[in-house]
């Protein structure tokens, strides 16, 4: 199994004091696929991301990255392992220009050699980095915003910038935290097209409330409730799973299935 996955998690349990946020969670992400994580608020979706990205220390559980079993990574190691993450609410630096924000995604201080970073901090390296950032912005369709400040952008534009920032490090695994939140249907469609293109380059894991959006783009869907994976598989499979219907609607009725297929949950 682990030879064919970019990222594999098993038996992940996270406890905050007496509260169990994640309970024996598993997740397998194959290369060049989009994996969607859905579930009600508080189901533990973002906690999975936080565990992968070193913001939360798992109580127990194993992680393999690119088929190699390893310790849970620290935040500053993510780029080293080819993992890139966007944040809920975008998380751009308000005091840096758009292009500088994108440059920040490039793992600019590799962490392995501080002194080399410090004295190699030349204008030349910076100019090269700036060019890469402009390339990433161009790919995300946001080149004309390069010199603006994040505060001057519309919300959908900031989403494009955060994608460019995630891409500049050329990640193998991209974690997107609620990328469609706050977008109108038009922008969601454009965004879905962008992600399908992006899949050629890397595996993508998406946490999202917008069920239609997940259904349209995901190869695999995991449904969480109360910190447990209650169903997984293709979207068509999970949306018919009685456990999922019960979690979303409290009962498993046919009308429920229609609602789940057509609603924004």
């Amino acid at each position: 199994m682990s030879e064919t996955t970019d990222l594999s998690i098993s038996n992940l349990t996270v406890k905050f004091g007496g509260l169990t946020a994640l309970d024996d969670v598993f997740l397998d992400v194959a290369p060049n696929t989009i994996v969607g994580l859905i579930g009600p608020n508080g189901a533990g979706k973002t906690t999975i991301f936080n565990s992968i990205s070193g913001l939360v220390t798992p109580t127990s559980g194993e992680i393999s990255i690119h088929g190699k079993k390893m310790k849970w990574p620290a935040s500053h190691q993510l780029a080293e392992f080819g993992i890139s993450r966007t944040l809920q609410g975008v998380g751009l630096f308000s005091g840096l220009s758009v292009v500088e924000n994108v440059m920040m995604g490039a793992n600019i201080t590799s962490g392995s050699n501080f002194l080399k970073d410090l004295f190699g901090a030349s204008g030349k390296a910076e100019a090269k980095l700036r060019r890469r950032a402009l390339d990433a912005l161009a790919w995300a369709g946001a080149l004309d915003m390069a010199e603006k400040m994040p505060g001057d952008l519309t919300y959908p534009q900031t989403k494009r910038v955060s994608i460019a920032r995630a891409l500049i490090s050329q990640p193998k695994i991209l974690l997107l935290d609620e990328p469609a939140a706050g977008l109108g249907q038009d922008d969601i469609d454009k965004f879905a097209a962008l992600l399908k293109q992006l899949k050629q380059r890397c595996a993508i894991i998406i946490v999202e409330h917008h069920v239609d959006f997940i259904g349209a783009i995901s190869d695999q869907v995991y449904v969480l409730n109360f910190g447990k994976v209650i169903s997984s598989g293709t979207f068509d499979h999970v949306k018919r799973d009685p456990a999922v219907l019960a979690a979303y609607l409290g009962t498993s009725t046919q009308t429920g299935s229609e609602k789940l297929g057509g609603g924004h949950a």
Partner: protein
Amino acid sequence: MNTFLAALFSGTSRGAIFALVALGLVIVWRGAGIVNFAQMGQAMFSTYIASTLITNGSSYWVGFVVALLSGAALGSILDVLVMRPLSNKKKTELLGSESMRAAVPVLASLGILGALQALAGIIWAAEERGFPAPAKQEGFTVAGNAMPFTAFDVFVIGSVAVTLILTTLFFKKTSMGLAMRATALNQEVAKLSGIRTNRTRTLSWAISGASSSLAGLLLTPSSNLSPNTLDLALLIGFTAAVVGGLDSPAGAVLGGFILGMVISFVTFYDTPEDVFLAILVVLLLALIVRPRGILGSKDARRV
């Protein structure tokens, strides 16, 4: 006219030094979220090291460079040994509120100041000693008239200008500088972007330590050197940083020059005894009229 020129020149030269002090405070405030009251104690300590070297026969420039390096080293050591453990959330979680927790490192910096001054007194004795200047402190003479501007003033303004240009280039034109600006804005996102924020923090302590050591080297030729000589400079530098905006390096420099001018004009046109009063008035005015400082951003915390 002559008095005016003298006040103007002296204000520029002093202002340049206060700009350095204020800049040091701003860099640590942005990089670590701490008002470092020990800063000029650190500068005093590295100036003593330079003084010891010079009185034992080293050239001024050896002392100069060693002072800057030891200023950077002392800043880094204080961050790693004292400030980093104190800022650790897990170790300070017994303290009730967030603001209490934020106050701990600031109080610690006051403790460090006391410790450094006591230590300097033990090592070098507490009496004043002179400190050499690398250039003449008598005014230039033009056509037989002594001008109110000395070669040392030129050196002061020149070295501060070089420091300011280098600092600006570092923050604006290098990746490490970008990493430090980003860390100051949002530590969590910076971490997720692969920045080792512990290291950028320590680096801001080192830069601040070196720049305030330079301020110490430039102040002591006219004030002499004792464990407490630089206390006043901290007070003025802090006021300058508040006036200019505690989170704005450019504001710190501006504030430094404003304070330099105010002090110089009060000294020349009024009496040196009113300097303290003038500093206090400027501080009060700034806090009433524009509490975030001239170039400070809106959401800066007030201290």
